[in-house]
């Protein structure tokens, strides 16, 4: 039972890290659609650095930094300037898919290659990030709900004018939210490559960034909620594989859809009173 839970937690960690970071980002008012691209590029950077240096820890740090770098790009366009966040995020996803594909092909040949990269140490199914993820969720919740800093961050996403009136800088808090989103998505991508898979393949994130965005909503903009949502989906995913293996004659197409059908159902009943941050995805322009 414990072992099953640990495996579920490990497989859920990439998405969970991205969802926790993105919760902070969205609470500050920035919607980072580019999570998928961020995770993919970070997975690539982490895998390549680990492969060349032989050191997975260096790979992990590089993956986080790659995520931070992409978040800085989003910040330059969406916080420092008033670009549309959805458009920028979409562009980021396309950029990452193209870049990683092109680099991967130039390094490993047009017809590709299966390979392994050095992985982070594990104790059973536990590794440093799958242990850290729930703690990060709790830390983020505490920051958001129990600190003045968190109050201001939330205000930047709900009512930025009030933050300005209180003499605080909205862009600053949005930058911080975005940095959290980018760096955690980067660590998530690195975890996917360096712990879960032990390799890189083109488009290996396979929509995990988009699932993370959905999990932020499912978790009702609470970091702990987002982590729990990822665990639930992860559990259902492993359940559907075990049902497939048991061969009870349920169509496999239905089983593959099970986690998503179940989460839609849960979404319809859980926390219906909560709404998204009022100023989410709205660029903030300082009054003249």
């Amino acid at each position, binding site marked *: 039972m414990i072992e099953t839970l640990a495996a579920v937690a490990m497989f859920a960690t990439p998405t969970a890290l991205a969802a926790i970071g993105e919760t902070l980002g969205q609470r500050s008012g920035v919607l980072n659609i580019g999570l998928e691209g961020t995770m993919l590029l970070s997975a690539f950077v982490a895998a390549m650095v680990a492969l060349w240096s032989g050191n997975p820890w260096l790979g992990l740090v590089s993956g986080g930094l790659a995520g931070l770098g992409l978040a800085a790009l989003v910040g330059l366009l969406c916080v420092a300037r008033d670009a549309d966040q*959805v458009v920028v995020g979409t562009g980021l996803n396309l950029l990452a*898919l193209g870049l990683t594909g092109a680099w991967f092909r130039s390094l490993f040949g047009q017809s590709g290659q*299966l390979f392994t990269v050095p992985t982070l140490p594990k104790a059973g199914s536990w590794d440093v990030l799958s242990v850290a993820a729930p703690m990060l969720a709790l830390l983020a919740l505490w920051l958001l709900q129990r600190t003045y800093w968190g109050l201001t961050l939330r205000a930047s996403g709900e009512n930025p004018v009030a933050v300005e009136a209180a003499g605080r800088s909205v862009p600053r808090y949005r930058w911080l939210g975005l940095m959290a989103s980018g760096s955690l998505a980067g660590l998530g991508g690195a975890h996917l490559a360096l712990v879960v898979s*032990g390799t890189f*393949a083109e488009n290996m994130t396979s929509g995990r960034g988009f699932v993370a965005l959905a999990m932020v909503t499912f978790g009702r903009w609470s970091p702990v909620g987002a982590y729990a949502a990822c665990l639930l989906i992860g559990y259902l995913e492993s359940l559907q594989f075990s049902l*497939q293996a048991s061969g009870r004659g349920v169509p496999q197409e239905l089983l593959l859809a099970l986690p998503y059908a179940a989460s839609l159902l849960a979404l319809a009943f859980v926390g219906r009173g909560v709404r998204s941050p009022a100023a989410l995805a709205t660029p903030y322009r300082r009054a003249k």
Partner: protein
Amino acid sequence: MRRILLASALVLALMGCASNEPGPTSGSAEGRQDFKVALLTPGPVNDSGWSALAYEGLLAIRDELGAEISNQEAKGTQIRDAMRSYAQRGFRLVFGHGFEYNEPGVEIARDFPDTVFVSSSGGKTAKNAGAFRFYLEQGFYLGGVMAADLSKSGVVAMIGGPKVPSIESTFKAFEAGAKAERPDIRVLTLFTGQDSDVAAAKRATLEAIAQGADLVIHQANAAAQGVFEACREKGVLAIGSNANQNENESGVVVASAVIVAKPAFVELAKDVRDGRYEGSIRLVGMDKGAIDFVINPKLESRVPEATRKKLDDLRAKILSGALVVPKDEF
């Protein structure tokens, strides 16, 4: 919120067509510059599997016949556009690597009598269109026989990416081989639904091993490393597919069911170049050297002498036609 949802839908739609950058066009200085061959694949040609082997066949056509080549990923509605545009640009052979290219090919062939459209599997033909089907089931059948012999638990597993007819057909052949060897064997089938999701492939494999499987074959293309990693962690042997994966770093691949695309591709291109092509469905299997089942020399000690002997006998029977391996028509 509605705006966000709409935007997300748009993003997803864009993601779908993001990976369709056309491949490089290259030719060779000597040879017939007017002979141009195009390849359409359902996925990226660096998947170390299905699409990769077709790309290698295309390269062989360039190297051996001096043809000018071009390749592209094309799915769904893009297929017809890509075929027409290649035909308009004077390509003599347009190869679609999958059964989904068969119908569009036959249809478009009517408008372009000077271009030949060939798909990997599919049942329709025209004067200048047809199909070309790799009999990979033969390799999978031998894999099933070997798996049944090597398994101690009496449970073996097949891990697939998307659930498509070509993959299902090979899985049926594997199961037939395993059951022929050992009627009471349990064969687990798991699909991840994704072609590039390494983590999902690993998870599916771990689940199969948890349910007792001690030998795993896959059709996971680029995600295959996930299958092998799971096998390595749990100390279980695997059988590779499409390409020869015996050398994989995981060290668990005991044998591979291999498609050798080059000779078949080159032969087809030669027929087209010399104007000898007539619409037909060509079945290329072990007799044409297009399919092979290769045991990993490094792990040969894990395969009993009797099993190796049995595999050789079955191979001879397949070659002589005494054994016809089951395959689906699609």
